[in-house]
């Protein structure tokens, strides 16, 4: 058993690619070693990536391939001599070396040879060259005179097997090559000297040697180092990290440093009047600094920048001053737009929306705003406690900020800036809040719009988009969903389900289609939304068979009702009555299936009480009085639950196949009644297990 180290030293690998590169290298080496037959049950491949180093450490590889027996079947024993001679020649063996063996097709000759497994060390170079040549970088390049492609110019290839350097070379083409070595290098500025990798004994050993050269190889370690050092620094100013936001760009920060050193910077006071979302966008999204909150949870004027240098009081001052300077210019731009945009009423931006195309064939953004306004008017009456006037007004203004200077510069602030500008234009709070939140939810984890008016506008926006793109047949196909229609549909579903809204979705879709001038809603849209609902429910950890049972294919347009049915059914099936009832259901349906097959007919769901015993009557009574009320799934399920004991008792005491054919048929009719009543509530045939 031996360990293998593979290290590629290159110029800076893009931050966004580092984690994937580490995983890919580990995966590729594992698969190559498996093919060679030297991968072991307790082998582990770990891939690590820092800006200039991509490394895989593999433990417990067999030192040589296992011996193998190769068997070649020849002709039958009684074949003509010429055929046997031909086989001897092709297999390169003598007649004496052949063995005879019986097969289902007769007695045959076999040539057996034992192949001695090769030394692993001798087999590694070609597989490493193969990995290098086919590495799945999202983008790669050539350099110099070479033909070889890598993410950025590659400088060193270090391979150690059992602690010893492995000979080999990568031909770059154009007369250049990289000879395999065993010498890495440290931090570009802090420790540019060579780092000897010979005699490496463990992954920790590699990490330690690199750490001595101020390189943290492990991206997770860099994440942790950044977070813990930044937290400590923040605490020194009684602040804490805005960790929720940091999650989205921590990997970008960690991918830009070999040795992170957090430094504290200060935002000038004059900029602290800017909205916190704007500060966050400028400081975090664009500059990748860590933003902080103070003890009251307010956006702090301190921020943390990660330097890629060792701490040095004098240099740190320069680095902080430089970063503050960049930030100042950025914030001055933001401040300029903030002031300039607010010098006008929000309404005055509307005409310019006419010049912005929503989509070819779907008019301008201005057209969309007008449609949304009408649609908000149609939705608002179904939204408890929504102010219809405010909702319509918000819908009309919702897109106005798209043509402001700020949103041109910071597209991620769409909606949010509109909310602020609406407030500055003297709009009611309900209108402002609705504009702010109408893009929500932007993904499965994003918050929902909180106010009733915001929910109305958010629905109007998403429904308008769905109806429009379906209307021009720009539907999602397979993995392609360029207009994020699945996300829009999921947004509609989440708002309706979470808000417990009973909305005549079909009518609303029709109103939207009319707004476009379409004769009717595309026939695929409602099924598409129902399908997203199934996906949504499954994402809520609901069993797929339960979802299928609760939602039939033609279930109408009441999203909330469908979701309620599914969760009620899931709850019912998880409880004792439900599981018990399902046991009964399985017996009922298997008996009926068998008997109906024999009888070649389905049994009518009727039964004559005159032929009943007490046990059967106890089952028949609740069955015959059960009301079918699709809208109240809870009471329906409760009624079904009440059938559990009578059904259990029935199977305990009664033999269906009575000698008297009339009684037998009467009992089968009773079972058919159970089936009919249960299927009226949900499609229990879909339930598995």
């Amino acid at each position, binding site marked *: 058993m031996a360990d293998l180290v593979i290290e590629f030293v290159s110029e*800076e690998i893009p*931050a966004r690619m580092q984690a994937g590169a580490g995983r890919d290298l580990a995966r590729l080496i594992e698969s190559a070693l498996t093919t060679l037959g030297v991968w072991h049950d307790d082998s582990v491949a770990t891939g690590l990536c820092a800006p200039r180093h991509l490394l895989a450490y593999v433990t417990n590889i067999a030192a040589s391939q296992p011996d193998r027996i190769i068997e070649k079947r020849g002709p039958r024993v009684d074949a003509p001599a010429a055929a046997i001679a031909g086989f001897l020649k092709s297999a390169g063996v003598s007649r004496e070396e052949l063995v005879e063996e019986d097969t289902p097709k007769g007695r045959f000759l076999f040539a057996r040879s034992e192949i001695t497994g090769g030394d692993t060390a001798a087999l590694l170079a070609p597989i490493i060259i193969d990995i290098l040549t086919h590495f799945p970088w999202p983008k790669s390049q050539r350099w110099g005179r070479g033909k070889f492609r890598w993410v950025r110019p590659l400088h060193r290839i270090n391979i150690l097997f059992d602690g010893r350097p492995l000979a080999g070379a990568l031909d770059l083409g154009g007369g250049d090559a990289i000879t395999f070595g065993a010498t890495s290098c440290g931090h570009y500025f802090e420790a540019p000297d060579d780092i000897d990798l010979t005699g490496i004994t463990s992954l920790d050993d590699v990490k330690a040697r690199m750490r001595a050269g101020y390189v943290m190889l492990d991206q997770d370690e860099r994440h942790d180092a950044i977070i813990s050092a930044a937290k400590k620094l923040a605490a020194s100013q009684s602040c804490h990290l805005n960790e929720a936001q940091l999650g989205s760009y921590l990997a970008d920060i960690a991918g830009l440093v070999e040795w992170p050193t957090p430094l504290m910077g200060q935002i000038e006071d004059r900029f602290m009047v800017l909205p916190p979302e704007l500060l966050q966008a400028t400081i975090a999204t664009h500059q990748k600094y860590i933003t902080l909150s103070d003890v009251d949870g307010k956006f702090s004027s301190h921020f943390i920048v990660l330097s890629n240098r060792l701490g040095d009081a004098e240099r740190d001052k320069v680095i902080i001053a430089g970063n503050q300077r960049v930030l100042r210019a950025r914030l001055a731009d933001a401040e300029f737009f903030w002031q300039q945009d607010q010098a006008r009423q929000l309404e005055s931006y509307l005409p310019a929306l006419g*010049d912005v195309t929503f989509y070819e064939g779907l008019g301008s953004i201005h057209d969309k705003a007008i449609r949304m306004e009408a649609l908000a008017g149609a939705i608002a009456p179904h939204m408890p406690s929504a102010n219809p006037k405010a909702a319509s007004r918000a819908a009309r203004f919702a897109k106005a900020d798209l043509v402001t200077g700020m949103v041109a510069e910071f597209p991620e602030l769409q909606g949010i800036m509109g909310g602020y500008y609406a407030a500055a234009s003297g709009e009611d709070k309900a209108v402002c809040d609705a504009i702010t939140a109408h893009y929500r939810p932007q993904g499965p984890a994003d918050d929902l719009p909180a106010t009733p008016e915001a929910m109305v506008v958010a629905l109007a926006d998403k429904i308008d988009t769905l109806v429009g793109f379906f209307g021009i047949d720009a539907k999602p196909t397979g993995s392609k969903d360029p207009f994020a229609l699945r996300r829009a549909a999921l947004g509609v579903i989440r708002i309706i389900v979470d808000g417990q809204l009973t909305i005549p979705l079909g009518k609303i879709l029709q109103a939207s289609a009319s707004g476009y001038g379409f004769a009717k809603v595309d026939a695929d849209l409602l099924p598409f939304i129902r399908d997203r609902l199934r996906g949504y429910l499954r994402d809520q950890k609901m069993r797929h068979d339960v979802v299928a049972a609760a939602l039939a294919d033609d279930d109408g347009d009441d999203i909330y009702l469908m979701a309620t049915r599914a969760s009620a059914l899931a709850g019912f099936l998880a409880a004792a009555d439900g599981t018990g009832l399902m046991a009964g259901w399985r017996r009922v349906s298997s008996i009926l299936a068998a008997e109906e097959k024999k009888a070649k007919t389905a049994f009518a769901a009727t039964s004559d009480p005159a032929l009943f015993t007490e046990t059967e009557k106890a089952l028949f009574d609740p069955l015959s009085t059960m009301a079918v009320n699709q809208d109240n799934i809870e009471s329906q399920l409760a009624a079904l639950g009440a059938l559990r004991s009578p059904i259990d008792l029935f199977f305990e005491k009664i033999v269906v196949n009575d000698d008297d054919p009339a009684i037998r048929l009467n009992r089968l009719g009773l079972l058919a009644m159970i089936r009919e009543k249960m299927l009226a509530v949900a499609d229990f045939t879909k339930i598995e297990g």
Partner: protein
Amino acid sequence: MPTSQSDEIRTDFQSIILNLQRHWAKQGAVVLQPYDMEVGAGTFHPATTLRALGPDDIWRAAYVQPSRRPSDGRYGENPNRMQHFYQFQVIFKPSPAESQALYLDSLKAIGLDPDKHDIRFVEDDWESPTLGAWGLGWEVWCDGMEISQFTYFQQVGGIECNPVPLELTYGLERLAMYIQGVENVYDLDWDGVPAAEGGKTYGDIFKRAEVEFSGWNFEHADTDMLLGHFRDAEIECGRLLGLETPLALPAYDQCMKASHLFNMLDARGVISVTERAAYIGRVRNLAKGCCEAWMGITETTTNG
């Protein structure tokens, strides 16, 4: 001047240029002068665009290129944005193995010691839709500020670069502002001569030009005339490329002209979003044709 100061690196604007020229000359670059036409970036200079492709197997050049981006004009009121600015452009073909080290040495040569700062190479892939060119590389950050573009060219005019050139672009104003510690570009010291002795700042030299050209670019340029010029340049370029022996260099001049005229039309706001892509495509076709003609000429000369 006392000898103790002779080692000190001067940081006035013109000294930064002189020091960069000296540094790259020492590395074997041909130090060229700016191309005498309006271009949006140093890359347009034929010494980069065409020489990136051929005919020389080895090509090293360095030069300053005034760059014009009409839409970036701010009437001299924005401390960081101008419609006319300077780029220092370096092209090394084939890209040297020690490209990054050469670049970092050049920073030392202008008084920006990498050891006293935090220098990073941050992913920034370069693409010029009008030139049909792209490459991979980084923007170089110094203490959080972008000071250069660092690109390994892969394609120009739709043609693969072989060998691969390294292109470095220094934004001179921004770099000088950082080195001089100046917040407003117009306050940059141009010549290192005290004002009392007639020394000039960047603003003394260019502020009026920024005000006047912003006015022309945004308000007064005759758009019908510009449209006419664009068409003329496009037609002339096509004609030169269609000659029995195409004239690649004069054709490329017309291509650069068309590109700048498009930028002017864009600044005047007469090109709609949908038209924009079509205009860029037209310029790209010209650039492609010029690059192909240029490579064709190379063949005839090497064969003949």
